């Protein structure tokens, strides 16, 4: 029984529907026509067994994350063994016996999974320079690029669903994504992955609506206290002053004082004396 996925807020507005095993196989086949579907099916079966009952913070079964990561890796033109390793990249956190993956799916897949867990992504931007991950289809990716692809795909899906993670951890992950993962992706020639990581992380670190916009909206409401003919002028004048204030604190202070002075200003403007020029 499949649960309806809650779609997290995403800057890139991508419909983050969980891929199925079929779509993962199709993606792998589009870059590697001779793909052994049976291998991927067995990897999926293993992942389903060992992750059974586990759920993500979003409430989705953990296997949805395995599929999503495998789909990203397949789209990065990685060979089938790497896609299998992506399906099973979290299997070491389960009760799966250490030798089992090597026995069932071969040493390459098992070694990749082990390498993914120990890889230091921050070491990649230098090492990865010049070697383009994106061109992996023709020459076959190096061991390092295959490992990096899985790590990046893992982080990308985690960032797409980060809305469900607690605030503190979310900020830490976003910072690390911005400082380590996004540069590593770009250095490996994966501009689109790098850009999406950067966008997702930036959205976490910097709220979508800057505070001066909020204060600016408040000023627009304040201007309603003034005679209608004068509103636009004062609102514009205050906005210009707000834009010159650099700290949130200063802007809040400014707005608060304008609020306190608004009744008096309104009274002044309503006096039957000579109208202000212009």
């Amino acid at each position, binding site marked *: 029984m499949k649960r309806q996925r809650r779609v997290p807020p995403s800057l890139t507005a991508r419909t983050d529907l969980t891929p199925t095993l079929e779509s993962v196989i199709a993606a792998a086949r589009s870059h590697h026509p001779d793909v052994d579907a049976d291998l991927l099916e067995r990897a999926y079966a293993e992942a389903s067994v060992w992750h059974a009952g586990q759920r993500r913070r979003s409430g989705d079964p953990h296997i949805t994350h395995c599929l999503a990561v495998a789909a990203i890796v397949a789209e990065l033109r990685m060979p089938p063994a790497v896609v299998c390793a992506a399906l099973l990249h979290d299997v070491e956190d389960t009760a799966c016996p250490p030798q089992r993956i090597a026995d069932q799916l071969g040493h390459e897949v098992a070694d990749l999974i082990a390498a993914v867990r120990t890889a230091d992504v921050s070491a990649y931007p230098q090492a990865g320079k010049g070697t383009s991950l994106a061109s992996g289809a023709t020459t076959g990716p190096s061991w390092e690029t295959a490992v990096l692809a899985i790590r990046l795909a893992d982080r990308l899906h985690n960032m797409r669903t980060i809305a469900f993670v607690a605030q503190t951890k979310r900020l830490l992950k976003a910072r690390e994504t911005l400082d380590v993962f996004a540069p590593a992706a770009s250095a490996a020639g994966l501009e689109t992955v790098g850009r999406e990581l950067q966008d997702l992380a930036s959205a976490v670190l910097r709220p979508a609506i800057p505070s001066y916009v909020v204060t600016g909206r408040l000023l627009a409401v304040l201007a309603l206290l003034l005679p209608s003919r004068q509103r636009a002028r004062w609102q514009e004048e205050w906005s*210009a002053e707000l834009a010159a*204030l650099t700290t949130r604190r200063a802007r809040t202070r400014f707005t608060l004082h304008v609020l306190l002075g608004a009744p008096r200003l309104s009274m002044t403007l309503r006096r039957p004396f*000579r109208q*202000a020029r212009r």
Partner: protein
Amino acid sequence: MGMPRMTLQTQLVLRALLEDPARQRYGLELCELAGLPSGTIYPILARLEQVGWLESSWEDPAVHEAEGRPRRRFYRIAQDGAEQAREALARTYRSRKQPLPGWVSAHPAAEGGAS
């Protein structure tokens, strides 16, 4: 035309503007010069403009566009405003009983009256 009430805050604003009468100032600048919060400054500026002592105008587009920010509203003492403002400020001094604030002058009468 009317007269603004010469409150202490109004005097501070006028003095700030009269320091360099030809110069245009924006509200936030006057807040700093006069040491007054934003909420106090704007009603005073509006009032002084009403009585014709000040004139205000929008900033030259060339300047704020070059600096990439919204245009400011500038204030300046009006031509005939400067004289009236100085006069009014002077009157506030004259109307006081003591030529200097009490804490400056050691006026024996003030001490006698307090006891």
